[in-house]
Structure formats: C-alpha cells, structure tokens
C-alpha cells in the first residue's frame, strides 16, 4: 500500500498516538454501526415497459413489490431506465425518471364519475350506469342525426354530430379498437393529437 500525502499527515499529525497504539495491537475506536441503506430492489419483480411520455419511447423497468404470489398485491415501487434499450440505454429524462409519481399521482381518477347538467359536483357512479347511459346517448344521437345521403343523393353514411378525440399515448391495440368502434359507427369528427 502506498502512503498518500494525506496518509502521511495522518501518521505524523494528531493521529500519531492512535496509529502507534494500533501498531501495538490496540484496536482503538469503538465499532460504531455504519452500514449503507439496504438495496431496495433486491427481490422486486421486474417488468419491461415503455415510457408513455414522448416519442423517443425509452425502455423502462417497472419494479413491483411482491413476487406475484397469490397473497401479495403487486405494487409498483420504482421505475428506472432499461439498460438494454438501444435508444435510452438506461437513461431517462426528468419526466421518465419520475414515472412512479405519475402512476401514483394524487390526481388519478379511480372511479367513474358523473356530473349532471347544471350541477356543481361530481357523483361517483357504477360502470354499469356510466356505460349504459353513454351508449344510450350515442344511439339516440346517431339515430337522429345520421346522414345516409348528402344533398346530391350520394351515399355518405356519416354521423357528424358526435366527435371523438383519440389519445396519443395509448397503445396501438387501444387505437385499433377505438378505430373499429368509432369508424363503424360512421363518426367523422375524429382526430388525435398529431395536429397539435
């Protein structure tokens, strides 16, 4: 072991007595507990995913508590970049690095909510109620406002009075499902975020 400059001072300075004691076999200094925080992901389950924010689509690893055993509820406890991903190679931006806080955001919606005309408040409703009511509203409007032929008599089969704004962070599979449902109904007021 080479003796660094600092080490030299240590030896010659106030530590002289102690060092000498140690050299004589007196292990001075009480063993005070000092250990690092345990690595918090040691046995967490890893799931590969893609950052939902921008179109770089960085690979991320979601770490969940629980080993998927029946009696352990999976809970995401950490998100980190996927080092294998060719584009981000484990790195993340400030949004990606805080994805956990997005998943756990206090303003996430957890239950279907409904606001009636003129009301000042939300009311929690059941899925059954919400879906029944929405599909009924849809059919009502479609049956009333569907344009089968235009003024020139050309078959156009469009439904111009209800619109759908699709997302731009949902999966392709969601997108295709949405496309099928929206277009088969004849809806034309249909767009996504690509224009903005």
């Amino acid at each position, binding site marked *: 072991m080479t003796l660094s400059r600092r080490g030299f001072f240590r030896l010659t300075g106030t530590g002289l007595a102690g060092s000498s004691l140690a050299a004589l076999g007196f292990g001075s200094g009480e063993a005070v507990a000092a250990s690092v925080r345990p690595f918090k992901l040691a046995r967490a389950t890893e*799931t590969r*995913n*893609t950052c*939902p*924010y*921008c*179109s*770089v689509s960085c690979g991320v690893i*979601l770490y969940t508590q629980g080993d998927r055993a029946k009696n352990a509820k*999976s809970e995401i406890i950490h998100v980190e*970049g996927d080092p294998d991903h060719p584009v981000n190679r484990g*790195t993340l*931006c400030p*949004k990606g690095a*805080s994805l956990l*806080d*997005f998943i756990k*955001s*206090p*303003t*996430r*919606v*957890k239950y279907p909510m*409904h*606001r009636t*005309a*003129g009301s000042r408040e939300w009311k929690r409703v059941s*899925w059954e109620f*919400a*879906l029944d*009511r*929405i*599909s009924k*509203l*849809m059919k009502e409007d*479609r049956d009333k*406002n*569907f344009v089968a032929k235009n003024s020139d008599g050309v*078959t156009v089969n469009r*439904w111009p*009075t209800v*619109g759908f704004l699709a*997302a*731009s*962070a949902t*999966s*392709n*599979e969601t*997108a*295709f499902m*949405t496309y*099928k*449902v929206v277009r*088969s*109904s*004849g809806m034309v*007021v249909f*767009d*996504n975020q690509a224009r*903005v």
Partner: protein
Amino acid sequence: MTNGWNDIKNADVITIMGGNAAEAHPCGFKWVTEAKAHNKAKLIVVDPRFTRSAAVSDLYCPIRQGSDIAWLGGLINYILENDKTQKQYVALYTNAAFIVKPGYGFKDGLFVGYDEQRRDYNRAEWDYELDEQGMAKVDPTLQDPRCVYQLMKQHYTRYTVDMVSRITGSPKDKMVKAWEMIASTGTPERSHTSMYALGWTQHAKGSQNIRAMAMVQLLLGNIGIPGGGMNALRGHSNIQGLTDLGLMSNLIPGYLTLANDREPDYATYMRSRQFKPMRPNQTSFWQNYGKFFVSFQKSMFGAAATKDNDWAYDYLPKLDVVYDVLRAFELMHQGKVNGYFCQGFNPLLSFPNKKKLTEALTKLKWLVVMDPLKTETAAFWENHGEHNDVDPTKIQTEVFMLPTSCFAEEDGSLTNSSRWIQWHWKAAEPPGEAKTDIDIMASLYRRMRAMYAKDGGAFPDPILNLTWPYIDPDKPLAEELAKEINGKVLEDVPDAADPTRIVLRAGQQMPAFALLRDDGKTAAGCWIYTGVYTDAGNMMARRDTNDPADRGLFPNWAFSWPANRRILYNRASADKDGKPWSHRKRLIEWNGRAWGGFDVPDFGVAVNPTAGTMPFIMNPEGVARLFTRGMMRDGPFPEHYEPFESPIANPLAPKIVGNPVARVFKADMEVFGKASDFPLAATTYRLTEHFHFWSKHVPVNAVLQPELFVEISEELAKEKNISKGDWVRVRSNRGAIKAKAVVTKRIKPLVCDGKPVHIVGIPLHWGFVGATKKGFGANTLTPYVGDANIETPEYKAFLVDIERISPPVA
C-alpha cells in the same frame, strides 16, 4: 423520422431548428452528444430562444419565430449559388431535371392560380409537362429554363443574405456560418441531419417549413443516408402509432384515406389513389393501394365485405370536409356537435383560444372523458377562480369521467418516432375501478350493437357486421388486437405458377405486406404494420441488442415499420449502379444478384439498378420532389409568409398577410391582433421538466418547475420596468394571463426590417388541476388559425403585450 434516434450518432452536422430536442427529447438527444463526442459532429441550433439545446451547441443562430422559410430559402440560395449540391444525387434522385408546364409562374408572393375569394389556388398548372405516353419530360443537363432546377434557382434568388437577415433578424455572420456548415455535407462522405418538431409544424405554413429543409437535404444528398434524413421528433409516445393506425379525421390505417363526397363508388375512389408511374421503369408503390384497402375492409367487416358490395365501401363514412380538431371545436361552438369523447386528451389546454373552447364545450349535450388523470377538460365546468372563471349552474353539459389504466397497467405496443413498434407488459392492476381503454371501448360497442340488433336504427349494418373475433368479447386482449392489426390469411392462396403449391394457408398470420391481396383472401388492419405479429410470434417484443457494424440499426430489436426497415429511402445511400456513395456511409448495396447490407432494402430486393428504377419508389416519378406539383395547397416551392400576427409586414410581398391559403374561420380572423396594439412577438413552448399538461400531476415534476412564468429579454424588462420574479400580465387580442417573469440574456431583441422586435416566451404546462401551482393555459392567448395543409394551429408566432402587475392576493 426517416432515420432513427440511434442513427443521429452517424451525422457530421446536426441542425436543430423548429425543435428543442435537448429539452423535449433528452434521451434521443443523447445521440447528438454521441455524434459530437465520437464523430466530431457540429451542432447548429436555430431558435428565437437560446434553449438548453443551444447550451451544448457549436453554433447558435437566433431567428424570429415564423421566419424559418426565409432562413432556409436563403440556405437553398446559398447552396445553389455556391454550387454546393451533391450533383449526381440531385440530377438522378430528385425531380430537378423535370420540365414544368409553361403556365406555372410566381409573382408578388403568389403562385399562379390564386383565387382570393376561396382563399385557395387552382393548382392545375403546377405540374410536369407530359409527353405523348403520359410520361414526364426531363432535361438531364438541368439547363432548360423550365426545368425544376432552374425554376427553383430563380425562385430563391430573392432570398439574399441581406433580405434573409432583414426578415429573420438573424445576424448575418452567424447565419452564413451555419449555412456554410450545413452545405459542407453536400459530399458523399458527410451527412447532415435535421431534427425538428412542433417549432416547425405549429405555423400556418408548418408543412412548408419542413419541405424547405427537405429540399436542402435532397440538394445535399442527405436523404436515405446514415446520419442524414428529415427527423420529425414528434410529440407523444404513440402519436406515430395513432397516426399510422389512421386515428385522424381523413385517414384509414396505413395512410390510406377516407373517401369524399365526390367519390360515390369504389372505382372512382381508386382512380385518384392508384398512381401510375410518370417515368419509365418506376415502381410507384401506391399502385398496390387496392390490396391494402381491401385487406383493411376484410379486417373490419370480414365476410360482409365482398367484391359485390365493393368491399363494403359504403360502410365507411365519406367526408364533405376534413373534420380536424379546429373544425370540430368550431362546429361545437356553432352548436352543431352534441356529444364528444376525449380519450387521454385534454383539449381545453391543447387547442388555441381557451375562451372559445370553453364556450364550445358548454354547448355540448354530453362529454365523456376517458383518462387516468383528472383533466381540465373533464373539469371545464368547475369554477377555479381566475384560472377557470365559469358558473357551473349555467353549464348544461352532462359530463362523464371514466378512469383508465396507464401504461404500467396494461399490455400493448407503442410506436416511437423511429417507427419502432415496441411491446410492453403490464406490471400491476390499475387503481380503484379503473379499466383499460380497450375494455371501455369494447363495452360501449357491445351495448350499441345489442341495441341495434334488438331495436334497429340508422344504418346498423357496419355496427352489426364489425368483426369481433375475441375470445372474451367484453375483454379483448392486446395480443388479439395486435394479431388483427398484423392481418391473417382468410383463404388459401395458391402459387400463381403452380396452383398445387399453397403460398398462404388460411388462418396463418400474414408474414409481410407484399403478400396482401385485393381479392378478399387476406385481411390486415394496418398494412404497414404487417409483420408485427406473425406465426413466428410477437415481433414487437423482440429484445435482441445486436447492432452489426455499429450502424445504430438494431435490426432485431422490436419491429420497425415498414417491413422492419430502419432507414427509409435507404436505396438512396447507393449510387445509380448500386454502389454506396461512400464506405463510411454505406447501408445497402447491389451485389450483382440482389440488394443486401445492414438494413432491409427500401427497394425490390432483386431489382437490378441498371433497370433505371429510381430510389423513391412511393412516388410515381421514382425520384424525390424538389417541386411538389399540386400536392401542397400553398405552393410547389416553400415561400416565406409572415405569421398572421406579425410585428412586421412581409418584406418579400408587403401586401400579403399570413399564408394566403391557410385555414381560418371568419370569426377567428376578426380577433387577430395588430402590431400597433400588441407590439411583442410571442411564442409558446415546452420545458424539459414537464410533458404537456400531464406531468403537472406528478409531484416531482411540479417541484422541478412549480409555477407558470414567461421569459423576456433584459432589454424588454428594462423598457417595461420588470425585474426577475415580478408578476406580469401578458395580453393578446384573445385573452390575458398572469405569470412570473424570468428575465434572461437568452432572449435578445432581434432587428427585423430595420426595427427591434422583442420576443416573449410562454411555456405551456400549467392549468388548474394537478400538483403544480395553478396557472393559466398559454392557449388563452394563441390564435385559432391552422396550417394550409394539415391544419396544425399557429402556436409558435403571435402578438402580445406585457406589463408588470402587483402580485395577486393569495
């Protein structure tokens, strides 16, 4: 992106203009730093603000927002005047040699054929002269005064250094230095990449901004080359996928288009879409349009789509106009829309003119918001003081807020801007009772279908006949949908030469889009995605990190559309004989029998280059277009027009206000502000700490950028007596916002047309729900005007005024 994120590392010169990659795409920007570190690349940043991209650039050139075409036109002029083009590439791979009709002309800022009443052009004369066989005439010497090269040269002679500097406010020395650096890549050994995003698209002439740089890239031979290309960085994680899958007002998956009212039947529809080659021996790939359309219809309507009913041609709606989002809200504002769905989208903050949007939503009978987060749109009827000053009792809209899962709670794929389709896996259950969007859409459809089956109603056929091949019809699986998008064989397809041999067996997943058919024997939800889920499995889930020769292509990582190709137009990386232009920039080459190399060739694998087939196989010309014919509504060459709200008159054509064919509704035209009332040039943008209106719900990001601010120069601050941290009010003719002031050296007044123009920067991330301090939407200020071609709103250039105010009472 024509290329990909990793490929940026191969560039020698990188221009970030019309974007701010370091802030908006930090992990993609990594490959810029890699190019700088390992390829000795130089980074140029052209932006009104000295951004965090500029902070690590080699050259920063300021520019007034909305004057990009002038700057790029000057660059084109510089390249042509100084003879910096990559000559063989331009002569062979572009339409430089094509002869244009004699009727074409340009005068006083307008192309020939302008109709002021309709605010539109008659574009008939913007086309090639054809010979007797219907083939375009060319002059390979580029000397004919009516050839594209000469017309282009003539068009851009007006864009002198003096004129460009006068328009843009860019200092001449920096501007010319940047041009010189970019033009240095007009050689086979060097490449230049263009990285842009909404800084170019969010203008009334957004498409032409991009085209102008595309022309530069073609002149320098940088398309199809490693480290080159036109790279749209794009916005959301799956904005590429949503567009690919046709979730836009006029699209069918795979960039097919909906029919319009003038196309009553399938034959008429196909006539304007199956482009015939315009030069001998060209591919004109869109000749296959029918195969993609029929396969799509089979995927949608299955057995109900038959040859006899024109493949259920009438099941899809026809368009009288394009119902883009600006029109959607205009119609809503007029009371013509009754119900509206917002799926993971927050239009109240995303679209221009918030006041108009609130009025429009108020006129809806019902609104359904599907989102993991509580959005401002869902809460548009809630009173939030000055941040959303409405009276709920006066709003009669019925609103549903449906909780959806987020990315972490579902399986599926996303398509990034490199066109990589990547699969992701679910890690946990969604909170509370939240459901996936797939389940919600399926539930709505199932209820509709049941009602139509039972009670009938308006044209129930497409609803009743929609294919629904899912094991659990109420809960389709992402994998089932992925297989559907890929497509499958419906009936056995025998070999044309040997009918005993079955090429495609019924039930099999489609292996490639080249095998799709227009006889109803194949189905594919989105032809460009064919290959994502074959019989070999889920190609999107591939995780092979091998990258032969460090090209940055990663051919077996996930799947890249089309056909797992990583760099579009890669045939152009080789010369006419199929030899790479340079060893350093090689991608694919002709080995005498076939094309091969690092990437999947963007070309017929067995097409001998000596046949004269040119690289741009999607175009009927076979070459890339410097002159776009009538494809763009606002001109075959990009021309500089001022923003609709501009501090100066257009020095090139002072009488013309804005893009002469940009889409403006009448009432919106009336609320444009004048420079005399609103003398400051404003622009909106994102900050790296936030993602749109989403991350403000995230506590960590709220800590990193907690409160709305605007950025102004020290000079303007002095003039207006504003110090850093002061409260200011920013007004446009449409509204006013209050914000904190950030006074910075990073914004400087620019001298344009002889007078100083002050710039006000307005970040857009704040609203009235979330973890950040409440703030005003930047869209309180922005004008409601859309790009001439794709209707993107002009968020990047408008006029405001600013004043210091006393702090609001808490």
